[in-house]
């Protein structure tokens, strides 16, 4: 028998959702300040209006749904999934008001793309966008990459139990520190430390490459946020092509890889345990996986014969592989070049890279390396069972911060999530094909959306059908939250309609 959600459930969800909305609305003070400093008054007004709407909505929710109870698992999951949808709608308001998006749906698309650190975009006339709005596009990647809820956890929500449920709901189940609020703060500390260092490096490269100091700094901040949070937006319409700089590309490759590593691994590196990098199952799997998919892409590009020099292979082939594998979506080639100049084998290589993703508890999307490593270990275990005598006891271990014995429940969980991602990739591809796009192109774009990558072969455009836009929004949302919160939300609505 399905139980209908009671008033307490709704109040708890509403109260915590209200707090998260207030937190999000307050982050809009940053673009308002930038707008005033840059003398961009209309953009500042766009954000003031949105901040006020957010505060109104958030304050009313916290007052109407006031509760002192802590969240249970179901409520926590629902708060997270609704928080992401609400964040999308709220953030889309100033974007739409800017006039750079053709419809509110397009603004919602880019808003979800930003928060989910995807990078697919429907923006118009980006090269004439205000600094205020451009900063916001990148800031939402930084917020979404760390986790929307993490902001609220860090500043607004007390009570470790409820906080942990929200943290897990946001597809993070690894505690770096014993206290989850401290874990959230550590994630912010790491991100801000890298932000300062990364911005400095990118700014210097930009300035040496002929950019004016302020522009170099602004681009440095934005590109860092998009690279470390494996987002993929860039301040100019040409994305990374705009900079025409080998050094800039190398720097972004390093930042993208740092963003694709587990925050827990960052912690161990910070405390001096550097051996963890070479021992950890995720980094080992990531290394092997990058080499494998790059080999596929390299063979494809060799066949296509477009990049005859090693430098070209690196700047075009390897860059796109790293960008895809880390789930960033930065491009050093035009979207049309994927289809017109790369052959099918090279495209399949990039699709594989996008579908696999980076580490768990990082800012990347897609299946992720821990799961791939676990599945591979399970295969090894089964092969050993077949080869060795029946009486032999087969034990499989893997190293992830500590030595862990492989258990069936870990393999089951890894396979289930992998299967869910594969279904999501092919479902999006199927819908793309319904609208007449070729299979490989549809699969490319769908994997990019569901894996929160952002590479595009040209399908994503303001002119694409609304159903496809909504499909990609749902894919980005479900892919970022790794399904569980989304399934709980669907279950909640079903229970509300059919429960007793």
């Amino acid at each position, binding site marked *: 028998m399905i139980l209908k959600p009671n008033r307490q459930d709704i109040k708890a969800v509403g109260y915590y959702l209200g707090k998260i909305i207030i937190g999000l609305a307050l982050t809009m003070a940053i673009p308002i300040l930038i707008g005033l400093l840059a003398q961009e*008054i*209309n953009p500042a*007004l766009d954000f003031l*209006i949105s901040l*006020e709407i957010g505060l109104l909505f958030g304050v009313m929710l916290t007052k109407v749904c006031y509760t002192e109870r802590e969240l249970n698992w179901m409520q926590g999951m629902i708060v997270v999934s609704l928080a992401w949808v609400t964040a999308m709608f709220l953030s889309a308001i100033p974007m739409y008001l800017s006039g750079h998006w053709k419809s509110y749906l397009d603004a919602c698309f880019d808003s979800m793309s930003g928060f989910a650190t995807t990078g697919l975009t429907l923006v118009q006339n980006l*090269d004439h966008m205000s600094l205020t709005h451009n900063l916001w596009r990148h800031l939402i990647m930084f917020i979404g990459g760390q986790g929307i809820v993490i902001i609220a956890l860090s500043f607004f929500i007390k009570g470790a139990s409820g906080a942990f449920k929200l943290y897990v709901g946001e597809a993070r189940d690894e505690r770096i520190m014993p206290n989850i609020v401290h874990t959230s703060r550590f994630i912010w500390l790491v991100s801000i430390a890298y932000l300062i260092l990364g911005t400095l490096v990118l700014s210097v490269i930009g300035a040496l490459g002929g950019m004016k100091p302020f522009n170099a700094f602004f681009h440095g901040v934005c590109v860092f946020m998009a690279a470390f949070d494996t987002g993929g937006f860039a301040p100019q319409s040409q994305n990374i092509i705009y900079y025409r700089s080998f050094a800039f590309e190398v720097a972004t490759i390093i930042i993208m890889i740092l963003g694709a590593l587990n925050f827990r691994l960052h912690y161990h590196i910070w405390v001096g345990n550097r051996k963890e990098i070479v021992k950890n199952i995720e980094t080992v799997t990531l290394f092997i996986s990058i080499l494998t998919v790059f080999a596929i892409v390299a063979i494809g590009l060799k066949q296509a014969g477009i990049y005859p020099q090693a430098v070209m292979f690196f700047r075009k082939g390897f860059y796109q592989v790293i960008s895809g594998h880390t789930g960033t979506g930065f491009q050093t080639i035009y979207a049309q070049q994927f289809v017109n100049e790369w052959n099918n084998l090279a495209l399949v290589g990039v699709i594989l890279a996008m579908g696999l993703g980076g580490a768990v508890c990082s800012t990347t999307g897609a299946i992720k390396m821990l799961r791939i490593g676990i599945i591979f270990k399970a295969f090894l275990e089964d092969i050993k069972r077949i080869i060795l005598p029946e009486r032999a006891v087969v034990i499989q271990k893997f190293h992830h911060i500590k030595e862990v014995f492989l258990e069936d429940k870990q393999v089951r969980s890894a396979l289930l999530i992998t299967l869910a991602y594969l279904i999501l990739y092919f479902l999006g591809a199927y819908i793309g094909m319904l609208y007449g796009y070729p299979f490989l192109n549809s699969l490319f774009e769908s994997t990019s959306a569901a894996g929160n990558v952002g590479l595009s072969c040209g399908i994503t455009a303001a002119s694409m059908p609304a159903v496809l836009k909504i499909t990609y929004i749902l894919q980005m949302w479900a892919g970022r939250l790794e399904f569980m919160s989304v399934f709980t939300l669907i279950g909640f609505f079903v229970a509300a309609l059919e429960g007793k």
Partner: protein
Amino acid sequence: MKTRNIKWIVLAILLAGPVYLIPGFAAESISSAELLSNSKHYDGKQISYRGEVIGEVMKRGDFAWINLHDGENAIGIWAPLSLTKGIVYTGSYKARGDVLEVSGIFNRACSEHGGDLDIHAQTLLKIESGKLTPEIINPVKRNQALILLGVLLLVWILTLLLRK
């Protein structure tokens, strides 16, 4: 007779030559969409492309990168620094950039620039001057912000009263 004709033709070309530098008389430019769709066809050929300068002029020694946006895509132009001296406005939130027409060699994967798709400029013509685009405060947005501020204050006061 033949020699006299050739002389007239040469004279006519010399007289008409400067006309090609005047806006409207330039060779027909190819769009970015066409270049990206048929890059193999245009690879290594001399082409003409027109667009607004966006971003900024990035100086690299005796050369500079500029990016020209034709309304659909922006394409990078590698030009001798001397050719870029006449650029006054580059497209941004506060300015509309100069519209230039470049004539040069199109590369779908430039061997000099790590495989970039670019155009190596031989000539650059200013077709249209850019301008500053001063911001006029939108009164509707201003009023909406003020009304919402009033509502927000009202809700805040109400919640304070309800608490009491």
